[in-house]
């Protein structure tokens, strides 16, 4: 979330789309209810199903699953055509005035620079024109046809209300009403927010779904302001923290880009990751990259990391390509992986195409499951009849199951969706011989280190020198780990030399051995160590700030500065400089947040700006971008700088109505498709219905089915279908049905509901099949088939998040 749970109460309009907060995040949704009751805020729900969020919304609009960009692109077109944008904000805070390159084009659904063989774009025609001074060229009048504003207008002019309705199946009057309601939020004294979840991410165009909405929020002037922002309602309790701690291949702690084979020298790597400002007087925050990276290396390799050896850069594993979970299972399926360790994760039930996953796991030499509970993944080799019909004796994988503690049995910090890290206490002793994940990792590592010290082996240097200064090496404590994450001075941190008197002694800012107060004190010369720059300062000399429980909210805006620690720098709303106008004054008295007081930036929050940068300097609010403003035209995206509607890989209409004569532009041209998976996609002739998976309010993934109370509340698997489809197929409420995709089938119960209606799309009727995915062959619930047997093994072109929210199935009564 760019804002926070408690900030939702400041919104005048809340759009819930690509999510169902009332059921999936019921307690967080209380802040939506608060805004509706106290401020008369309005709520819009856009979803393929009439869900419980829709039930309390002022306006509900149905949308065919997998068509969000068409809908939101239509909103952009309406806002630009009706001039309902926050002009001053857009000019100040976006790249609308920037000039794009003349060669940039969209030709029948494909952007310039496409290479069909590699399914990748050469992006040299995308992006901005640079002047001779090295800065981007701009047109303040926004009349130049090459400026981003005009390009944006041209791009979305095709997204007419008729086109939106034709692709999405949304009634035009409802679509237009939503445009009007959103358009009102362009007034400086109004803000609206968006709450989304996996309904947007789990598509082959997932990242662009979110980007399209972010662009709307920029056009309405809602970013960095109370009651605004783009708010991802995330999944697991610490999915935010674990992402921040670099638990995925492409990044290191705090989203430092991980080195690849192309970064063959340390200098090249730093050069790639340390951008130059693209406009005058910009903060360009990533210019600090070397400080953050070198400090991380000091945390990882301690004394062994020196300026002379480039802080052990050569020891860092280099990426040759993607190592996301889909790619790992693909490698496993090809027999290129021998071992796999799964910690608190149940991939067999949560990653698409269960049969492929099962075949892949069967090729492993060893599998290690670290979990407090039984999981389907751990039992993949066991025959559970039709629910898991495998030949046990032919599976040669050795499987280990290590008991880890559950959440109540360990202390430590978790980071919620609002980026707030909160410390929890240990409530109870572990059960049996269970141990915390950190202790299991320490035991395993110390064992390996011992073996390498004794017997040698491949490249032992990094193993033998990994910094391990924990008081009890076999049980590093959460407190010493959080101190390591926050960072400390290894030698005195000195102030920069005084330009007037360079030889004068420099002041000591942080003494050797002390915790640093924040990332501004991190240095690139080896004098500081920091496990994650984003969390720097969370354990300062003042102690563990994540353990704070202060409930003060001096402004009444829901800014609890003394409760936990929000990254970065305890900031509660990101980009909050944008809550003030060009001169540093609030956009409207009722939306006062951060402002310039004549000497410094101040307000309800920690300013997201150099505190002493006067507004006249023109330093932009989006300090992480070298251009200082937010991007409407973003070249970082795999499939184009402006989001374009593409159909799901399994499309129920078989055509992209925006480009009916170009079969190459039906689905995302830049999405990665593995060999063999293309053939595993189903066609609408055989699998005519559009399916989506989702959660129920009583269950959390395949986890809570082990809790008796939740098993009583929702004991048995089911799918939801409309009355129309039930009638067509002769299915009654409660009948057993077989739902099949091109990858497998499940047998389950049918719930026939009025909450689902067929979509009138492109001259045909598209039926939706809704599939809750909580069941499996373990647990207190009635055993059920794994829903992800059905889902396709293809991911978003940028994030590789699988397309679980739009795929094709058939339904038959059994």
């Amino acid at each position, binding site marked *: 979330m760019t804002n926070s749970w408690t900030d939702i109460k400041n919104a005048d309009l809340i759009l819930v789309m690509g999510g169902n907060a009332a059921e999936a995040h019921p*307690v967080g949704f209380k802040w939506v209810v608060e805004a509706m009751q106290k401020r008369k805020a309005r709520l819009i729900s856009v979803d393929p199903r009439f869900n419980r969020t829709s039930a309390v919304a002022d306006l509900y609009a149905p949308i065919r699953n997998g068509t969000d960009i068409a809908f939101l692109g239509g909103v952009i077109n309406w806002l630009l055509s009706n001039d309902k944008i926050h002009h001053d904000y857009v000019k100040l805070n976006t790249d609308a005035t920037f000039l794009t390159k003349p060669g940039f084009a969209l030709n029948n659904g494909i952007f310039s620079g496409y290479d069909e063989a590699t399914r990748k774009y050469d992006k040299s025609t995308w992006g901005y024109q640079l002047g001779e001074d090295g800065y981007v060229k701009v047109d303040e009048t926004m009349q130049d046809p090459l400026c981003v504003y005009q390009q944006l207008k041209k791009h979305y002019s095709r997204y007419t209300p008729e086109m939106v309705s034709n692709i999405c199946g949304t009634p035009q009057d409802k679509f237009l009403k939503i445009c009007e309601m959103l358009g009102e939020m362009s007034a400086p004294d109004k803000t609206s927010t968006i709450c989304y979840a996996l309904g947007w991410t789990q598509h082959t165009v997932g990242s662009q779904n979110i980007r399209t909405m972010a662009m709307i929020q920029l056009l309405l002037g809602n970013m960095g302001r109370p009651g605004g922002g783009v708010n991802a309602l995330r999944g697991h309790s610490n999915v935010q923290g*674990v992402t921040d701690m670099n*638990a995925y291949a492409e990044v290191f702690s705090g989203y430092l880009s991980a080195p690849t084979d192309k970064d063959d020298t340390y200098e090249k790597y730093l050069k790639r990751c340390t951008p130059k400002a693209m406009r005058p007087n910009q903060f360009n925050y990533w210019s600090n990259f070397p400080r953050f990276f070198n400090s991380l290396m000091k945390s990882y390799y301690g004394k062994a990391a020196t300026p002379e050896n480039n802080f052990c850069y050569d020891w860092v594993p280099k990426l040759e390509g993607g190592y996301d979970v889909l790619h790992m299972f693909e490698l496993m399926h090809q027999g290129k992986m021998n071992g796999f360790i799964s910690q608190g994760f149940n991939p067999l039930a949560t990653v698409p195409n269960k049969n492929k996953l099962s075949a892949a796991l069967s090729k492993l030499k060893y599998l290690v499951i670290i979990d407090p509970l039984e999981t389907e993944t751990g039992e993949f080799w*066991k025959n559970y009849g039709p629910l898991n019909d495998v030949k046990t004796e032919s599976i040669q994988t050795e499987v280990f199951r290590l008991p880890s503690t559950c959440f*109540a049995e360990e202390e430590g*910090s978790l980071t919620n969706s609002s980026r707030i890290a909160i410390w929890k206490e240990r409530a109870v002793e572990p059960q049996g011989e269970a141990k915390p994940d950190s202790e299991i990792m320490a035991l395993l590592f110390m064992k390996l280190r011992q073996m390498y010290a004794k017997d040698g082996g491949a490249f032992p240097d990094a*193993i033998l020198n990994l910094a391990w200064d924990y008081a009890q090496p076999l049980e590093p404590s959460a407190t010493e780990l959080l101190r390591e994450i926050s960072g400390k001075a290894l030698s005195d941190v000195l102030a920069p030399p005084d330009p007037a008197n360079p030889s004068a002694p420099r002041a000591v800012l942080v003494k050797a051995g002390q915790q640093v107060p924040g990332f501004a004190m991190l240095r690139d010369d080896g004098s500081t160590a920091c496990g994650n720059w984003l969390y720097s300062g969370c354990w300062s000399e003042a102690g563990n700030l994540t353990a704070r429980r202060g409930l003060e909210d001096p402004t009444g805006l829901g800014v609890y500065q003394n409760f936990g620690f929000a990254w970065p720098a305890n900031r509660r709303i990101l980009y909050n400089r944008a809550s003030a106008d060009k001169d540093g004054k609030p956009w409207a008295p009722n939306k006062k947040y951060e402002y310039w007081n004549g000497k410094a930036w101040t307000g309800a929050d920690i300013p997201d700006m150099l505190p002493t940068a006067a507004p006249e300097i023109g330093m932009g609010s989006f300090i992480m971008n070298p251009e200082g403003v937010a991007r409407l035209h973003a070249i970082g995206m795999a499939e184009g700088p402006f989001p374009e509607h593409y159909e799901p890989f399994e499309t129920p209409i078989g055509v992209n109505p925006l480009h009916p004569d170009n079969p190459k532009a039906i689905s995302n041209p830049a999405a990665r498709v593995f060999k063999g998976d293309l053939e595993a996609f189903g066609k609408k002739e055989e699998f005519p219905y559009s399916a989506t998976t989702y959660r129920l309010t009583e269950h959390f993934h395949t986890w809570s089915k082990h809790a008796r*109370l939740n098993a009583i509340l929702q004991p048995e698997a089911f799918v939801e279908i409309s009355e129309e489809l039930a009638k067509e197929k002769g299915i009654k409420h409660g009948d057993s049905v077989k739902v099949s995709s091109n990858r497998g089938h499940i047998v389950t119960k049918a719930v026939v509901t009025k909450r689902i209606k067929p979509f009138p799309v492109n001259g045909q009727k598209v039926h939706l099949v809704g599939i809750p995915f909580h069941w499996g062959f373990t647990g207190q619930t009635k055993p059920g088939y794994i829903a992800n047997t059905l889902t396709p093994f293809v991911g978003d072109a940028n*994030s590789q*998040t699988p397309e679980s929210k739009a795929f094709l199935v058939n339904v038959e009564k059994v």
Partner: protein
Amino acid sequence: MDMNRRQFFRVSGAGLAASSLVALGFSPSAALAETRAFKLTRATVARSICPYCSVSCGMLIYKLGDGSKNAKDHVIHVEGDPDNPVSRGSLCPKGAGVMDMINSPARIKYPMVREAGGKEWKRIGWAEALNRISKHMKDDRDANFQTTNAAGTTVNRWTSTGFLVCSSSSNESSYLTVKVARGLGMVGIDTQARV
């Protein structure tokens, strides 16, 4: 009056007993017998956070057991923490059922192994589990570690064992997990954030 939650229960419990005795005709001075107090008054409370979704509701977890070695403690009650500014004491149906997850019969209590081709789990000790797993890891790493790529660039990576990191584990556990995995040269690292 400055009173914590446990004292409040004690006082109100005593007050309730006293007033009932009066109603039954006993005078307060005769009320020397002690009534049984709520179990909660003997419980220890810890502040925790719901493990399920990312609202991260505050939880108060009550356990019985005095912390001595021979007394096994166990969770008897879980409720929302009213002093959490986000959840303000609420729990949803998932969080409200969390005690049954802590005490689930599906909890894994001991290290186990399923041998190649085997039909059942077999209980083993931690030492054997760690010995066997680290042997597998070292064998695989030593056989498949790449120090350079085809172009001669130093890459120092281990691609043939992958790691999925838990998204409900603490920041500290996940930081250490990744530090170890990267230290070993692993590149196949992912988490639930992906799916």
